[in-house]
């Protein structure tokens, strides 16, 4: 009888643990998470302060904006290989795949042709490849050799990579048509993986 009571107590503990965890996750993601989003997003849904201060050249050690899933992706402005300034906000209305990479990275090299294919085959998507802390001449040579023609920008100081919590190459982020950051994928992706994610984003809109 005592053994049975002990088992029943354990079963009760399992149920209580499940209920507590589910309740906690609900509060953390839907109640508290919802409140935070409302506080942070201005009425016009465009954070002008964030946009100006997260410019690639403007980031200082004193101000490091947060990167959060489900909120506006921090904007940045970097120079491309033609020396023109390119901002993330230039691509509003399109799904953006931000890919952080470097020429020395073996897996970035494997991923590049798939990024090219994805960029070519999807009119509503743009690949924004952010080269991190490398010389322009080196990147130019690499891109010319590969025959890639998607947008490549240079994060010369690594500030944008730092802002986007890049700790390994390649790392990719997906931003929806409204500029909302949907998530990040550390490591290399195959074309199948990329296109499945893009399909999912498209269906969810």
């Amino acid at each position: 009888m005592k053994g049975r009571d002990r088992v029943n107590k354990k079963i009760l503990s399992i149920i209580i643990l499940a209920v507590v965890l589910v309740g906690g996750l609900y509060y953390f993601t839907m109640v508290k998470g919802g409140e935070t989003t409302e506080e942070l997003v201005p009425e016009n849904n465009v954070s002008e302060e964030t946009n100006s201060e997260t410019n690639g050249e403007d980031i200082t050690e004193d101000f490091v904006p947060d990167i959060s899933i489900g909120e506006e992706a921090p904007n940045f402005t970097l120079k491309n290989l033609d020396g023109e300034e390119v901002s993330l906000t230039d691509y509003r209305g399109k799904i953006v795949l931000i890919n952080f990479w470097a020429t020395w990275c073996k897996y970035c090299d494997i991923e590049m042709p798939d990024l090219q294919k994805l960029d070519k085959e999807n009119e509503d998507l743009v690949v924004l490849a952010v080269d991190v802390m490398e010389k322009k001449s080196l990147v130019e040579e690499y891109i010319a050799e590969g025959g890639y023609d998607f947008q490549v920008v240079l994060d010369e100081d690594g500030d944008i990579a730092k802002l986007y919590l890049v700790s390994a190459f390649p790392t990719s982020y997906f931003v929806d048509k409204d500029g909302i950051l949907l998530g990040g994928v550390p490591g290399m992706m195959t074309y199948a993986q990329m296109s499945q994610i893009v399909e999912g984003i498209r269906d969810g809109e």
Partner: protein
Amino acid sequence: MKPFFFTFKSINITWFMAIGIIVTSISYIISGILAKEYKEDKNKIEDIFMILLIVGFIGARLSYVLMNLQSYKDNISSILKISHYNLSLLGGVVFGLLTLMLLSKRYKIEFKKLFRIFVVPFYFSMAVGIWVLMFDHLLLASTHLKEDPKKVLYISLLFLIGMGMEFALSKKSNNKYISFIILVVVMFLYYIV
């Protein structure tokens, strides 16, 4: 919500990995507790748990590939590149059940008993683990819940209720298929919610 659970130097721990490890660990403990309740050897049950975990993942991946063959036909080797964005829950469950049938013969434990032991950790994992969709919106976008994230709560409650019903009805009911019926109903509701 940060994009990753933990980032340090070249180490990236995704939300899926973090929640997956927590949920799997608790489920492992639960299956040990239930082994005692059903008077089975705890070591055997824990061994079966590990086998089910591995086979479940392989099954989830294979099923996903079979359902999306057109994406892999030009690049067969990418089938081996498993990501949590490209798995099928139903495939994992079906492969898990088939493996359980085989293991019940190998370990000489009644299938019904094994099913009842492992269905509870499954409900628990789903009730808690489904919340990873709220941390990783890319993962949410790859599910049928993408149109209304609030459905994550309903799904979580659905699996909680499934677990409650399993505890309440499985031993009291005379119907030997009751646990299986509950699982089928829960899975059916999961896909139509």
